[in-house]
């Protein structure tokens, strides 16, 4: 056993790395966070069907665009994880920059959407719809922002030349899990909060 290997976390009974396991547990817990937020929204939506008419406000084109961008950022994230595993640092950095850029576009769309909605009269204090909508999508936005901060830190760290495939691939993979999860949550929100409103 090399000196390096003896610094590992030790054996893993489940054959899953500790960092990966704790991220999966966090994501499980996070499901409950978003579950509570989305349920609150749907409960009030059912309780007060006529309180607010979101179809007039929602721009399906804009939100579809930002959803597509977020999906594509997940694609780039997968590419950067793969590049890191192969030790291709240049490709890794290029793809991470792409993820960050797409994430920022998504956040930009959300900021635009929020200001636009507020301008049109939907405030956090507008009935229950404003409350549930902004807290739910805002929490998702904060998740995206934390992800971007995380990836930017990783990008800087990779510039220091200390990032190595055998050591840090797992860190990138864990960040990737988080990013994909945030993406999946958005697909759920996009479906049950935006798209459903346009049915019937």
């Amino acid at each position, binding site marked *: 056993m090399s000196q390096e290997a003896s610094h590992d*976390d030790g054996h*893993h009974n489940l054959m899953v790395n500790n960092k990966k396991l*704790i991220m999966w547990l966090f994501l499980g817990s996070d499901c*409950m966070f978003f579950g509570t937020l989305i349920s609150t929204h749907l409960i009030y939506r059912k309780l007060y069907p006529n309180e607010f008419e979101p179809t007039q406000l929602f721009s399906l084109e804009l939100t579809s665009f930002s959803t597509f961008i977020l999906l594509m950022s997940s694609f780039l994230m997968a590419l950067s994880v793969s590049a890191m595993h192969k030790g291709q640092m240049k490709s890794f950095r290029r793809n991470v920059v792409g993820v960050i850029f797409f994430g920022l576009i998504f956040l930009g769309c959300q900021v635009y959407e929020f200001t636009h909605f507020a301008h049109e009269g939907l405030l956090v204090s507008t009935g*229950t719809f404003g*409350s549930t909508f902004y807290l739910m999508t805002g929490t998702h936005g904060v998740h995206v922002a934390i992800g971007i901060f995380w990836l930017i830190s990783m990008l800087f760290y990779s510039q220091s030349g200390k990032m190595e495939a055998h050591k840090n691939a797992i860190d990138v993979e864990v960040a990737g899990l988080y990013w994909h999860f945030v993406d999946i949550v958005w697909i759920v929100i996009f479906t049950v909060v935006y798209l459903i409103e346009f049915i019937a």
Partner: protein
Amino acid sequence: MSTKITDIPSTLQQSDLNQLKPEKSDIGLTRPDHSKNVFIDWLTTVDHKKIGLMYGTLALFFLLVGGVEALVIRTQLAVPENNLVSAQMYNQLFTMHGTTMIFLAIMPLNAAFFNFLVPLQIGARDVAFPRINAFSLWSFVAGALVINFGWLLQALEAFGLFSASGPTAGMNDFVPAMGWFGYAPLTSKEFTGAGTDFWIMGLQILGVASISASFNFIVTIINMRAPGLKMMRLPVFTWMTLIVSLLIIFAFPAITIALAQLMFDRVFGTNFFSVAGGGQPILWQHLFWIFGHPEVYILVLPAMGIVSEVLPTFSKKPLFGYSIVVFSGAVIGFLGFAVWSHHMFTTGLGKIATAAFSLLTMAIAVPTGVKIFNWVGTLWGGRVRFQAPMIFALGFVWMFMMGGFSGIMHSSAPADAQQQDSYFVIAHFHYVAIGGILLAIISGIYYWLPKMIGKMWQGNLNLWVAVMTVVGLNITFFPMHFLGLLGMPRRYHTYLSGFGWETYNMVCTIGSYILGLGVALLVVDIILCFRSKKPAGNDPWDARTLEWATSSPPKVYNFAKTPIVNARDALWADKYGPESRKLGAMDEAHGIHMPSQSWMPLIASLGFIPLGLGLSLMQAGVPYAGYAAIFGLVTITFGISLWAIEGPGGYHLHPKEAVEEA
């Protein structure tokens, strides 16, 4: 405790001392390892044993705080139309009594046992993420400070050193006063002041502490078991830790979001629970109890784990029906998510929902009863030794059953409609909380403290503690059943004479003082144990599980060689079993890798204090409070960033025992 720190080098050979040098982090930070300064050593520690001891000490302190609050409540109620404390103060006392006992006493006492015991019971060096463990401890401290901050303001105001002026004038409710479950709309801005904000932020921070600790324990138990320690060989206490941790990570999000919604209602004027804007106060009740009912099992399952360790040891028998005890614990945890509405039978859920929740609640009695029968089965035919831990464990089985019986009465919705919000409910959950959980925790303290500090109990004070607590709790809470059935409502500041409540209330108050004295004697006994000269030895109780295989107190690395487990009750099998089931030892030629200590968990957690206080005071209209919140957020980000950059670090140890054997 300072002797333990200087212990470390003495366990090493001189030639290995150079191995103690910690790795340097990427940004050249030196880690605070092997500090001669006691304060630095404990503040930066990542050792699960020290963290456990700190959890335990702080939790015992808050147990006394909550206990004093309870005694003031009982004194106020001793006679009719008493005016010892004002109605407002009374509300603050029962709110903080509940909050303190649940979040600051019992949960961290359980966490103290989790921390100290789980790595030892599974033969690991430490938890999976030692720094996250330290972060959980210090976040708990931050949350406790924020939630109790109102007492400080109130005291300052009482002594004339501080007066609320400007927008905060007239809001003399700095201490939470809306009950520990904070029902809407009492928590809205119209009715309560800064106290509610401290409560919201404090609970939020405590939630961070609990959830992060739980992630850590799940990973530790699933991934760090010693070779051969299969899941169905785990000690039951470790099993219950795993189940409780899973409950925490899935139950706490509900209250985290509910608290966030409440905070938004108060700070930003949203309408989640405000009736004027269309909000439904009942939503709070659902969200709260979706968390709140699993929380009940979060409190009691570790107690069941403790008792499942103590009873077999002092009966000299293996636990009767190990797998069914474990499985029952899992079923209790699972069903715990499906019964929250039994707290809300009187809110008008409709017949179907009420019947369903009633049925599921009754169903929980089945796995609980299975456990009780298994404990009795363990005693049956055993060589029972009535030593201190056993006395309290037996007390647990009996008293917890009493609480369970009244619990089954509540599960019937029509009966519950009569008992709702009466002293009958108080009697029920105090039998569970004190007769059940507290007795089990005392049993755990008597069982494991010799392991934790390496000193053995002396004298017979433990008998007095047992008599005082068991007798005291029965005198206090048994009459409350009658009070409840006579119609005395809970949370009333005082009452008129002539309802037939006077005698019962006086008896309850006398009982509470006996119980209080019992807990005080426990603290005296613990202090005496710390000053005891009698060494505990590795295995003072002739016990069964792995933690008794190592020294008392365990060395920083826990086991000189990682044990290889070949049986369920690993140490018992090693002592009395056939050759094939004895403990093995793993050869670690390269020494033991220990994680480095760190300041970062402490710094990141301390950021929660300005964040929590800042957001609370901002709502109350204190100028510049928002900047404190931003400062807190920056501190947290700074701490976590440096934490990531410094890396786990570490150094190597070559314990003398291991080297000599080799």
